[in-house]
């Protein structure tokens, strides 16, 4: 890794990273804040949940009901909203870190200094990882802060499960961003890179959603990495964390490594 480059890139990207992180933290705290009022009505809400079609509940991750804070937040936030927001982030940032610099031509300046191509893109990958790490870290912390501020002892909150949920999300976005990073490394055109990685990421996301809604096409979920992140299973303790964590981590590492390898070997139109 090249430290001056890392510092400069973080400086450029910090604003957008913080925007995502703060937005996520606010939403989290808002959810914690309204949770006690919902928890009081848990019983009636759970009744309500029972009448809803099961497929719909599954799609939005509500099948655990609202019994505990983690099951509430896993359905209310991690199931859909956080996933969509961070998928956008994981498509945009990797594109900006490589393909945009090649498309614009400023990569020429980075490569005219005595730093290898491998080092330059590896540094960019580190910037991406720092970005998602910061967002998930701030999201996690805000969960705990919200708990301390608004929840009472009697509200059930399992810190371990909550942390597992956040690590799982981090790894999912590492994998999604890794794929975008690979696309970004082999693209000459910023818009094309953004389009292709966006189509892949949201294609995967939609496959997972459709597979959840209808049991007939549940097999679709075998073809998407989003099925490796199942907030409701993590909270209920049904998830195979070792398998999904290692698979997601591996996908992220491999795609980034292949991206760097391609970038080292290819012609750059600078």
């Amino acid at each position, binding site marked *: 890794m090249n430290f*001056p480059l890392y510092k*400069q890139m973080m400086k450029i990207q910090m604003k957008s990273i913080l925007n995502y992180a703060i937005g996520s933290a606010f939403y989290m705290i808002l959810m914690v804040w309204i949770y006690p009022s919902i928890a009081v009505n848990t019983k009636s809400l759970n009744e309500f949940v029972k009448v809803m079609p099961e497929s719909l509940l599954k799609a939005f991750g509500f099948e655990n009901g609202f019994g505990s804070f983690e099951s509430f937040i896993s359905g209310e936030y991690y199931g859909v909203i956080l996933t969509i927001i961070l998928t956008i982030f994981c498509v945009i940032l990797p594109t900006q870190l490589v393909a945009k610099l090649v498309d614009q031509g400023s990569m*020429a*300046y980075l*490569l*005219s*200094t*005595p*730093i290898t191509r491998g080092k330059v893109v590896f540094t960019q990958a580190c910037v991406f990882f720092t970005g998602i790490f910061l967002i998930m870290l701030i999201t996690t912390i805000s969960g705990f802060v919200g708990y301390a501020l608004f929840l009472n002892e009697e509200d059930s909150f399992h810190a371990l499960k909550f942390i597992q949920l956040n690590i799982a999300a981090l790894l999912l976005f590492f994998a999604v961003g890794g794929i975008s990073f690979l696309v970004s490394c082999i693209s000459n055109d910023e818009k094309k890179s953004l389009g292709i990685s966006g189509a892949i990421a949201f294609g995967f996301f939609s496959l997972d959603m459709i597979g959840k809604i209808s049991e007939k096409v549940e097999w679709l979920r075998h073809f998407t990495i989003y099925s490796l992140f199942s907030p409701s299973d993590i909270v209920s303790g049904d998830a195979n964390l070792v398998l999904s964590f290692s698979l997601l981590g591996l996908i992220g590492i491999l795609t980034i490594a292949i991206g760097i390898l391609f970038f080292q070997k290819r012609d750059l*139109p600078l």
Partner: protein
Amino acid sequence: MLEVHDVTKKFKNGKGIFNVSFSVKKGEVFGFLGPNGSGKSTTIRHIMGFMKPDNGYIKVNDLDTWKSQGKVQKYIGYLPGEIAFLEGMTGKGFLDFIARMQGLDDLSKQKQLIERLRLDVNTPIRKMSKGMKQKVGIVAALMHNPEVIILDEPTSGLDPLMQRLFIELMLEEKAKGKTILLSSHSMEEVEKTCDRAAIIKNGKIVTIKDIHELQSMQRKLFEVTFQNSADADAFTKSKLDIVFHQKNVVRVAIQGNFDEFLAETSKYPVRNIDVFTQNLEEIFINYYEGER
């Protein structure tokens, strides 16, 4: 110091560069002349190691520029043809960032260059004019005292005063024993600084010649306005290459035969003589016609 050996790169559309070979000695300024789209920038991209040649190699300081990426850059200063900086930085911020990337501690040359170019470095780059950006690029290319300097169309965007200062800077670097490659589509720019020059057309080197030889091959257009139309008619009967004639105005192409031109014109009273600036194809029309 810089050796381009039989480099071929063919693109999918059939364009590219073909068997390009030349070398630049230490302390030499080498011009790389060609019209737009002739393969100048492609050759420079290969020299910088941005592209891998299909065939042949490029060596700077005996290091292959494709294989020794990250090492060879230590000896090279580069001014891109189209400068793109990182966003959201001032001139100074960018130059200091590049200096850190280069591992450069001594910023005295950077400071000296900024003063000489009269560059206001605290301006945000996005607010800079093309000429200012060009100056930032020149500082970035020279501040680490590189042994080989590669400049892609360096004076585009600079006003005449700054162009002169730029030429001064190049001659100073040359005096220090630096090796300089300068690409251009203007003969005027090249003849002021270069010792030798190559002409490239459609991806092939047409000729490599001493700059004085090139100057003698240059075709220049003069427009002579005579006092009387009759004199103009008489003038066109001479052996000179007449390109255009209307009433008392005659346009004549001269290639080295200045004496003959002067002798013929001085026979008649002349009201005005103009020199026409031409593009490269017109200047070396013989060379290019031979290629067709």
